[in-house]
């Protein structure tokens, strides 16, 4: 049986702008993925715990509050702590160009900035999740 890719979409931090996350979740569903959506204002710990319980292949983080430099690396740090670095982590939101290298160094595989077509993120996931 062809198993669908499982993705967790989460919004860490305090901003309430989830339109982008929801649009992406819909696009992923339409691309045949199973998308677990955890809602707003999640702590990195809640996100990592949910990802482990749901046995997802990918965590998609969306942050528009500017706190990404703190929140995203915290997610990858907790994944490391749980021995779960095989879960692919990608991020999106209003993220300045100059922050991207340090986020990638912290284990975020790719950052998608505003204006990225959903198909780009979906293709990236399909390419990088190997089962």
């Amino acid at each position, binding site marked *: 049986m062809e198993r669908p890719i499982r993705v967790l979409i989460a919004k860490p931090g305090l901003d309430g702008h989830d339109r982008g996350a929801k649009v992406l979740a819909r696009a992923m569903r339409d691309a045949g993925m199973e998308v677990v959506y955890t809602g707003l204002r999640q702590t990195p710990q809640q996100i990592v*715990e949910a990802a482990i*319980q749901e046995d997802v292949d990918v965590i998609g983080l969306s942050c528009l509050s500017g706190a990404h430099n703190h929140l995203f690396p915290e997610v990858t740090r907790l994944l490391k702590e749980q021995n779960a670095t095989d879960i692919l982590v990608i991020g999106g939101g209003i993220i300045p160009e100059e922050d991207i290298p340090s986020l990638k160094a912290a284990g975020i595989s790719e950052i998608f900035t505003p204006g990225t077509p959903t198909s780009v993120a979906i293709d990236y996931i399909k390419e990088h999740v190997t089962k």
Partner: protein
Amino acid sequence: MTTSSTHNQTSWAQRILDGDRRSLAQVISLLENQEQEGFNILKELYPHTGQAHIIGLTGPPGAGKSSLVDRMIQEIRTRGHKVAVVAVDPTSPFTGGAILGDRIRMQRWASDPGVYIRSMGTRGSLGGLAQAVYATVQLLDAAGYPYVLVETVGVGQSEVDIVQVADTVVVVSVPGLGDDVQVSKAGIMEIGDIFAVNKADLPGSQRVIIELESMLDLGSHGNWRPPVIPTVATTNQGVSQLVTAIQDHYAFLKENNLLMEKRLTRQKESVLQRLTERIRKDITELWTKEHGSQIWQDLAAKRIDPYTLEEQLYLNWKGGNTVDKKD
């Protein structure tokens, strides 16, 4: 997942018994994907099953099932027990994708080590899903969760199959969905051991309660008359009564020796379903090996009808000779 290469099965089972949630989650995936390795692990853990009270929740979309489950988790945790949840959401029949959104309402429990929540898509195969849910429930049972809640959208026969993996079925209703004819015609109403009328603070809830009560008065229920419990998930009203009613039902099943009976029926059904699926695969694989996939094209072009085709496949598998010829 590189399961077999990195770990042996003993350690998988042992890690689940030791409470390792990552291993538990990964083996649930194996079961969900119908991979034999998952069932091998489940075989090993099978002696540890049979301890959990399995509770099914069903009802129409938007009835507040997930919010109610969230409150039930709270109540069960307050009473000092661990709890696991399997939340089933529909898979798109067109793309195979799914948005699994039940977890949003329960996400506050993500960091509680006494709560395990798993979302599942229906993935199209109806009997298969009930089997995947059943296997997952058994794994959670073996992992030491004394309460396992299965939440599903109450539409159609397949959903009835899913909730019937449960010892206790809670049917969630809400006001505003129609008159008492709806109550008596909906098949899902026949499977409830407990009826929760959620959003009981809304107008019309009293009518739903009365309609349910009178429907239940007409039916025969043996010695268990399903209670009707008004709830408001948003304010926690009625949730304690609901959990108590669920525990009462379990005690009733045990006292009347109905639990073993119920579980045996389920186990038999599981054996038969898995056997049917295996034979079905055997028959089609044998045919495909011998004759290729031409038959499906013949079927599409109406060169053969489905009824003759079924007979041919069966006879081919049986070797032809062992079946009495029709005159």
